[in-house]
């Protein structure tokens, strides 16, 4: 395996496949290394796919990619133990010729995406783990060491798209370890039900889909959210909270998921389903401030490994796809201009990211992860208050409306204090700005 490549890509997730396809299509000599049995077998996501980010890579992806449902309705629920109060947005406009968001099953989608990269000319090696990177005397990355046959492979540049744990970069001394306050641990189950049952329960037709995001008592005081996504013949149900909160509370993630499943608003939706998989995965949620250096002499980082997740909007796959594509385009440009893959030249990647929504959005919410982490009332106290307020408002019990309103205002004041309420409003406004 002593062959020399233009590019080595570590990993076959969203970022790795986006880069692999883009580079191979441009005629570069690509080696992509994946540790799973097949591309997708180690990858976990909810999962929502944002069409725009894929379309910019494979415009006609809808014709053959394994897609589950297109999303026509988004529900946001705040839960207490017995109720939810929330908002739903459903629009016929999402039943368009080229829908905007899809639910997908990652193991299937990634396998398809990687096949497209191979068809475009990328050399893909599975069942092989990259151990660390090889550097020359000047420190420039020139290749990678793999766990197969004591192998060493060489390239002009290495793209690390190895996911949230980002071991390759850390073991090669190119980046810091991820911090427990900057990662969420999410667990998920796949609940299988017949298509017609899902359609009836969610009031949808054919391959229309519904997405539910929940916060509140289900996270047991930890910063986190739950989710329910409708696939064709299954429902992905999961919940994730910040790792350091798990450490502090010592709550079992499996138990947390079971609590969510038994919630009276969730249980009827998954009733009678057959669970076929239980998965756990970390999500990099530290935002802009947790982003490592994403380029250097002979190397780039993309996707989860680069901490590109917009937790506020539950977006990650689109940031991974876009960063993978921009990394590839950077390499293609340098190659075309005959420039070496030095840090000074690869800086172009960072510039492209700055000009795209990837870093613009992450910058916009740069203070949000910390604000939420330090102010858990937003995901604990407020959902409970909202649910109680709604119940009081809707329950007809002979109490006059003015008294009810006063009771509701008093409950908020009692829970947070007037200054607390004003302070919370300011904190959110600042972090959201």
């Amino acid at each position, binding site marked *: 395996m002593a062959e020399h490549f233009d590019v080595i890509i570590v990993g076959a997730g969203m970022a790795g496949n986006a880069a692999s396809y883009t580079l191979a299509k441009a005629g570069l000599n690509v080696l992509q290394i994946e540790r799973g049995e097949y591309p997708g077998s180690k990858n976990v996501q909810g999962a929502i796919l944002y069409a725009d980010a894929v379309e910019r890579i494979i415009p006609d992806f809808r014709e053959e990619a394994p897609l589950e449902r297109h999303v026509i309705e988004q529900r946001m629920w705040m839960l207490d133990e017995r109720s939810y109060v929330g908002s739903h947005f459903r629009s016929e406009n999402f039943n368009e010729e080229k829908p905007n968001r899809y639910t997908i099953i990652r193991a299937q989608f990634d396998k398809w995406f990687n096949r497209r990269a191979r068809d475009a000319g990328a050399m893909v090696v599975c069942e092989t*783990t990259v151990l660390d990177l090889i550097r020359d005397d000047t420190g420039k990355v020139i290749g990678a060491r793999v766990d197969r046959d004591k192998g060493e492979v060489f390239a002009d540049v290495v793209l690390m798209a190895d996911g949230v744990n980002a071991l390759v970069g850390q073991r090669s001394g190119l980046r810091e370890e991820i911090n427990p306050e900057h990662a969420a641990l999410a667990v998920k189950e796949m609940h299988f039900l017949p298509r017609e049952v899902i359609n009836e329960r969610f009031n949808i037709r054919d391959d229309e889909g519904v997405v539910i995001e929940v916060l509140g008592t289900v996270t047991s005081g930890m910063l986190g959210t739950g989710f329910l996504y409708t696939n064709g013949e299954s429902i992905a149900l999961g919940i994730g909270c910040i790792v350091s909160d798990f450490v502090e509370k010592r709550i079992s993630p499996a138990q947390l998921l079971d609590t969510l499943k038994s919630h009276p608003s969730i249980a009827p939706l998954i009733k009678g389903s057959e669970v076929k998989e239980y998965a756990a995965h970390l999500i990099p949620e530290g935002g802009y401030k947790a982003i490592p250096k994403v380029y250097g002499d002979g190397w780039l980082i993309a996707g989860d490994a680069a901490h590109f997740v917009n937790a506020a909007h539950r977006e990650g796959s689109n940031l991974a796809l876009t960063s993978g594509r921009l990394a590839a385009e950077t390499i293609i440009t340098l190659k075309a201009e005959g420039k070496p893959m030095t840090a000074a030249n690869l800086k172009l990647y960072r510039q492209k990211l700055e000009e795209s929504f990837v870093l613009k959005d992450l910058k916009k919410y740069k203070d949000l992860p910390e604000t939420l982490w330090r102010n858990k009332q937003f995901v604990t106290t407020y959902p409970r208050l909202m649910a109680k307020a709604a119940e009081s408002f809707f329950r007809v019990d002979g109490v006059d409306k003015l008294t009810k309103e006063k009771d509701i205002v008093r409950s908020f004041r009692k829970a947070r204090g007037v200054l607390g309420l004003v302070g919370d409003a300011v904190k959110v406004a600042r972090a959201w700005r």
Partner: protein
Amino acid sequence: MSEKIEEKLFQNRYRVDEGAPHIRVNAEKVPSEQLKAMVNICPAGCYQDTEEGKVEIVADGCMECGTCRIVCQETGEVEWTYPRGGYGVLFKFG
């Protein structure tokens, strides 16, 4: 509780690299609070208290999330690598 996790894991596909666990616990010292927390928070229930007050790991059901790795990074009690290429959890759906 751990029985329930086992039921969940029963649905998953694994190819176990016999005799080559990818996570090892250095059990020489008294376990740190971080390591002790793993008994509760490992999503696969891989960590267990022993009668001698230590914490041990059986990594067969590991889903390779990396939580124990980042939680115990400072204590140095957990030695964590990915399984050999092709081994470990094999998600059917992910």
